C-alpha cells in the first residue's frame, strides 16, 4: 500500500502532519518548562533557575498547570501514535543490533518502520512516566489536603515524582541528541513536517517502502 498523498514535490515525504507537529511542540514547550522548574526544586544548586523564571513562588504556582498541559499533549500523542508504537519482532532485532546503531553503521541495522525501536522506547517511557508524574504530582500539588493517616501517599509521591522525572530527563537528553545532532533532517521534519527520500531510506526503510511502494536502497 503506497501513500501518494504523503509524497511531496522536490522528492520530499510528509513525515509529520500539522496536528502531530503542533502536539509535539506543546509537549516540548511544557516539558522544558517543567524540567527547568523541576530541577530548581530538585537541587539547591539549580534553584537559580526558579529565580530566572520569575521566582520560586511563581514557578511552584505554574509548574502543576504546565503539567496539565503536558498531560493533555501526552494523551493526544497516545491517541495519535500508540498503534504505530506497538513493539514488533523487528524491534527485537533492532535492539540486538544496537551496537551498530551507536557506531552509526545504519546500513547494518534491520529495517525500521515509521518509528524504530528506540523511538518506541522514548514514546512508552514518556507515556508511563507521564502517568506516574501526573498521579504523584496531583498529591504534591495539594499535600495539605492529604489526611495524616494517608501520609504514605505523600511519602510515595516525593519518591516517585523525581524518579520518574529523572527517567524522562534521560530520555529527553537522548531525544534531543538524536534529533538535533545525530540525524540531520529530523529536527526540520518536526518543524516543517517533511523529510528527504534519503532520510526516509536511511533511517526508516520499511516506512519508505510503505509510502513510496518502492524498495529501499539495496543493503550490502
Amino acid at each position, binding site marked *: 500500500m503506497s501513500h501518494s498523498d504523503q509524497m511531496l514535490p522536490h522528492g520530499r515525504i510528509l513525515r509529520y502532519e500539522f496536528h502531530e507537529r503542533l502536539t509535539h511542540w506543546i509537549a516540548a514547550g511544557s516539558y522544558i518548562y517543567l524540567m527547568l522548574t523541576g530541577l530548581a526544586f530538585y537541587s539547591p*544548586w539549580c*534553584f537559580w533557575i526558579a529565580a530566572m523564571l520569575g521566582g520560586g513562588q511563581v514557578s511552584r504556582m505554574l509548574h502543576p498547570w504546565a503539567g496539565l498541559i503536558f498531560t493533555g499533549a501526552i494523551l493526544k500523542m497516545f491517541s495519535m501514535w500508540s498503534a504505530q508504537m506497538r513493539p514488533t519482532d523487528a524491534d527485537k532485532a533492532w535492539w540486538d543490533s544496537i551496537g551498530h546503531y*551507536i557506531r552509526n553503521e545504519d546500513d547494518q541495522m534491520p529495517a525500521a518502520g515509521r518509528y524504530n525501536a528506540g523511538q518506541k522506547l522514548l514514546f512508552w517511557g514518556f507515556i508511563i512516566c507521564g502517568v506516574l508524574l501526573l498521579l504523584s504530582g496531583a498529591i504534591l500539588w*495539594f*499535600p495539605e489536603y492529604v489526611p495524616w493517616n494517608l501520609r504514605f501517599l505523600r*511519602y510515595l509521591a516525593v519518591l516517585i515524582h523525581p524518579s520518574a522525572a529523572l527517567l524522562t530527563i534521560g530520555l529527553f537528553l537522548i531525544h534531543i541528541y538524536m534529533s538535533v545532532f*545525530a540525524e540531520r533532517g529530523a529536527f526540520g521534519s518536526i518543524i516543517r513536517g517533511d523529510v528527504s527520500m534519503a532520510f526516509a531510506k*536511511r533511517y526508516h526503510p520499511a516506512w519508505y517502502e510503505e509510502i513510496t511502494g518502492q524498495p529501499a536502497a539495496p543493503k550490502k
Partner: protein
Amino acid sequence: MSQATLRVQKMSGHAGTVPGDDAQREFTVCKLIDTTTCIGCKACEVACMEWNDLPFGETVFDNTYQTMPETRWNYWNLILFNEHEKEDGSLMWLMRKNQCMHCAEPGCLAACPADGAIVQYTNGIVDFQQANCIGCGYCITGCPFDIPKMNPKTNRVFKCTLCADRVSEGLEPACIKSCPTGCLHFGSKEDMKDLAEKRAKQLRDDFNFPQAGVYDPAGVGGTGVVYVLHDATKPELYGGLPSNPSIPWSVRLWKGPLKWLGNVAMVGGLVGLFVHYLRFGPKSREDEDLHPGGESS
C-alpha cells in the same frame, strides 16, 4: 528581629555554606511541658494568638473540650485532650500542649527546596521565613509531627516560632509566660532535661506513676520541646504523639541517595552524549544534504 542572637546554623534548599554554621552558642533553648500538671486551661493558646497577632478562626464544638482537631496555620498552639480509661476502669485526663517540637534534625528543613525558607538558629529554634517560602508543602511531608500548616490564601506555611522574636530579646515564649500552674518551663536544653528527669523521678517514686518519663525522641536528634509524661511508654495516648518519630524514610531516600544518583546520571549522560558526538559524529554529513533527496535544512 535581632540578628546578633539569631545566627542561622541550618538553612533549607541552600547551596554552599550557611552563615552561622559553627558559630559559638553557649546553649540551645528548650521548652519543658509537664503534662502531669497541665489543667487544660488554654491560656497558652490565647497567649500564642495574642503575641503572634494571629487572626481568629472558627472553632469546632463537638461536646468535648477539644476546640479544634489539630493546629492550623493561624493556630500554632493547641492542647489535645484525651479522657483515658485506666486499667482499673477509672478515668484520667491526658492533656498535651501540641506545637512545633523544634527538632535538632528537622524533617521540614530537610524536605524544603526553597533557599532559606526554613532555618534553624544557633539556639536551636526552627523558624519558617514566609518571604522565602514557595508554598510547595514539602515541609508538611517532612514533618513527623504534622505541624506545618498551609495558609490557603497566601500559599505560605506557618507554625510555632518558639517566639524567636521574644527569645532573641531575652524573653521567654508567650505560652510559658501565661501558664498558671507552672507546667511550662523555658531555659537551656540541659537545664530543662535535668528538671524533667527530676520531675519524672518524683512521679515514679512518690505519685504512683511507675512508667513516668521524659519525651525527647532521639530519632529526630532530640527536640527543643520536651514532655514529662505519666506513661512515657505510651506517648500515642497523648493526642497521637509518635513513640519513635524520625524524618520519613522516603524523604531521606529522596534527599540522599536518589539525588546523588540523579546528579551523576544527568551529568554523566551529558558528558556521554558529547563524547559520543566527538567519537562518532552525526549519522549523516552536511555534504550529503546536497545530493538529490538530501535533507536541506
